[in-house]
């Protein structure tokens, strides 16, 4: 549980604030009433208010407010926690799970949620002919794929075993919390989804009910009095002003027009330099690993020595410090800090151009080589980083041609393998096993093995970790696999993102969520009387 300690440590040290999931730790008692205005920073609009359909982080903010899932992510514990499910009992070697459901959860239309809603929601996600984003979390359920292919209407692996109980059979051993905390598996009311108003006026189980949406400007939700957690939510209203433009967000936050603002590296430094603003920054190590992905089907990236040489040739530390402005944790290997399997004793690749040159010479490239580096314009894992790396690689004789593309195109290029190397950000958690599978030789490029790394020894470690029932052995295997990746250097390990959220001094109860910091369960948030918003 070092991980947990570390996480709380960050929250305490930098924000002077305990995660709200442990409200007792907060010196003050939560005040009822008030409004919080949390900026939606990633796009100029919400894409889709239906949680089953959207995988976008920005939409997730709203989904967490209006809807609920069987589990939620407990940021304090760093693990999924029971939510709509009140008990989960495994059987048959962890492949069958019986989930007891809350009997006090009401939809905003006043109807009580029951087992039928769970069955219907999961079946909907797999329904043939429609691409629901949440389907990926249900696909491991037995019979789900048959529904997806249109062969049958019902998922054989999901059974209603009581008014408030379902039994789910999986095709392999799983931890259901890691699947069902995702907002795209929200439990929805069938009768509302089928109404034509569903797309514009969603109804869910969340602590706040939909009030108003001005597309492109803001979404407002107000307190739902029949929410099942006693005394919650505290706030009268949650507002999501949409502000995709960072410079405008900065001014609005300083002008106290919004209560939270996600910070990029530039603003992170600026806010840290301001004595007042500095006090109220929430930081968390997010489960995203930034790296330069090399295509092992392209020479000379098939040579481990070349890949190691690149890791040695780049002064990663100074880029993290100066360019990422310490709004990142230097990466050692693939697994990030908050994920089990991360080894805090592991030392990252040393900046050592001499050694890099030696490795290149050993690989038969004493004069270096040239490659094309595809990048987006993202400030944290895109062009600015590439620009800083280019002169460093030049020192060891490696020449770089850059190819700039939009983010929307980057994914396509990665999935099709049409690259020599690209810089990107990958979600590397919260489930370590799933994360490490991205280098398993059986994983296709289109799933996530974009490097096409193939190594039998590594495959075996992962297979063993997947089947063992011994938690300690599993953790050990994960650590070993992670160490193996360090040595194999399938990518240039750059950093793990440090998400930083500035908040106004009157806001309390924010959660340091490592899966995505803007994702806040709003029932825990409260504002004290100094809040100017009415």
């Amino acid at each position, binding site marked *: 549980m070092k991980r947990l300690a570390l996480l709380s440590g960050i929250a305490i040290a930098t924000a002077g604030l305990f995660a709200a999931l442990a409200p007792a730790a907060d010196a003050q008692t939560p005040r009822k009433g008030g409004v919080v205005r949390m900026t939606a920073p990633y796009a100029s609009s919400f894409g889709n208010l239906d949680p089953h359909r959207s995988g976008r982080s920005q939409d997730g903010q709203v989904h967490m407010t209006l809807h609920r899932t069987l589990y939620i992510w407990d940021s304090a514990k760093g693990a999924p926690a029971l939510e709509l499910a009140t008990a989960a009992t495994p059987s048959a070697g962890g492949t069958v799970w019986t989930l007891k459901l809350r009997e006090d959860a009401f939809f905003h239309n006043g109807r009580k949620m029951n087992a039928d809603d769970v069955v219907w929601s999961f079946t909907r996600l797999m329904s043939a002919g429609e691409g629901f984003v949440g389907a990926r979390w249900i696909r491991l359920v037995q019979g789900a794929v048959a529904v997806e292919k249109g062969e049958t209407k019902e998922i054989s692996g999901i059974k209603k075993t009581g008014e408030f109980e379902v039994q789910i059979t999986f095709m392999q051993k799983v931890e259901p919390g890691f699947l069902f905390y995702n907002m795209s598996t929200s439990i929805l009311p069938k009768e509302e989804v089928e109404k034509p108003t569903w797309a514009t006026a969603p109804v869910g189980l969340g602590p706040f009910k939909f009030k108003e949406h001005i597309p492109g400007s803001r979404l407002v939700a107000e307190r739902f009095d029949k929410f099942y957690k006693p005394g919650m939510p505290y706030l009268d209203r949650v507002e999501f002003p949409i502000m995709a433009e*960072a*410079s405008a967000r*900065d*001014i609005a936050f*300083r002008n106290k027009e919004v209560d939270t603002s996600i910070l*990029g590296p*530039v*603003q992170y430094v*600026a806010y840290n*330099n301001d004595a007042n603003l500095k006090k109220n920054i929430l930081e968390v190590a997010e489960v995203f690993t930034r790296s330069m992905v090399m295509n092992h089907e392209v020479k000379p990236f098939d040579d481990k020595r070349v890949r190691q040489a690149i890791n040695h040739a780049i002064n990663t530390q*100074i*880029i993290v*410090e*100066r*360019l990422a402005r310490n709004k990142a944790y230097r990466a050692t290997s693939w697994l990030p800090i908050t994920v089990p399997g991360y080894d805090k004793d592991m030392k990252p690749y040393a900046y050592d151009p001499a050694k890099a040159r030696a490795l290149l010479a050993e690989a038969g490239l004493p004069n270096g080589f040239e490659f094309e580096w595809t990048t987006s*314009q993202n400030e944290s894992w895109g*062009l*600015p980083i590439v*620009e*800083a790396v*280019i*002169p460093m690689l*030049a020192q060891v004789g490696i020449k770089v041609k*850059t190819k*700039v*593309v*939009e983010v929307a*195109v980057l994914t396509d290029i990665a999935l099709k393998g049409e690259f020599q190397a690209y810089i990107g950000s990958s979600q590397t958690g919260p489930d370590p096993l799933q994360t490490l599978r991205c280098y398993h030789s059986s994983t296709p490029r289109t799933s996530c093995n974009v490097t096409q790394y193939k190594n039998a020894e590594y495959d075996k470690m992962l297979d063993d970790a997947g089947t063992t029932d011994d938690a300690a052995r599993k953790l050990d295997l994960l650590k070993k696999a992670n160490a193996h990746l360090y040595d194999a250097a399938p990518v240039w390990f750059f950093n793990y993102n440090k998400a930083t959220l500035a908040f106004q001094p009157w806001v309390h109860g924010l959660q340091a969520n490592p899966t995505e910091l803007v994702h806040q369960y709003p029932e825990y948030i409260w504002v004290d009387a100094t809040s100017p918003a009415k």
Partner: protein
Amino acid sequence: MKLRANLAIGGGLTLLSLFVGVFGPWLAHTHPIMDANLMNAELPPSGEFWFGTDQQGRDIFSRVMYGAQISLTVGIGSQLINTAIGTTLGVTAGYWGGWWDDFVNGLTNLMLAIPSLIFALAIMAILGPGLTSLMIALGLTNWSYTCRISRAQALAIKSQGYVQAARVLGYGDMRIMFTQILPNTLGPIIVIATLGMGGSILAEAALSFLGLGVRPPSPSWGSMLSDARETITTAPWLSLFPGLAIFLTVLGLNLLGDGLRDVLDPQSRSRR
């Protein structure tokens, strides 16, 4: 008096920009990309770094010097494309008339109907960010005025005696268009191109802001300004200098365009 002030200030500023555009790399202290030195990040202007340094520790003065090349290339390149398309279509349409004229007219109206920034945005999304794409995007979207004017000129000149005479002498259509009609359309077209260059430089900045501009290896003024916008409250010099460079260049081009209009295009001269 006014007329000369326009030409003098506008011409002066434009010459300065061109000078920097051509000789920028020699004026620059350091290389704009290779000399990233993260130890020097975000220093305010000083004796060593006249315009300060940016987030990557690069000398902003040098980057502004290099940036001139990119921004002016975008401006000049896109206007060359515009002028080529516009005059070719316009002169041929006016000279040949008939279905071709109808077609060109339709095309011109079509281009005028789509706001050019939006058209450019679409083309940039298709071609991907980059210098060439930008020149093409801005070059494909702003030729309607050039086309209209050269068409009108061609129509007017076509019926004049010397063109008729040239035809009688057996001059080919191409030769007549190039030697008789084109030179007569030059004045107004130079004016449009000059004003259009300023427009292109601003459009480049707007597209950079939207995330579709010219991106390095070489910095353009628009992308520098766009990158610096987050630090406007904390390190204003990052945006001030590229902003001023854009402002002065476009101001110069606008004044020069106004001045040239008075000289080259007396029909539309508005002053006494």
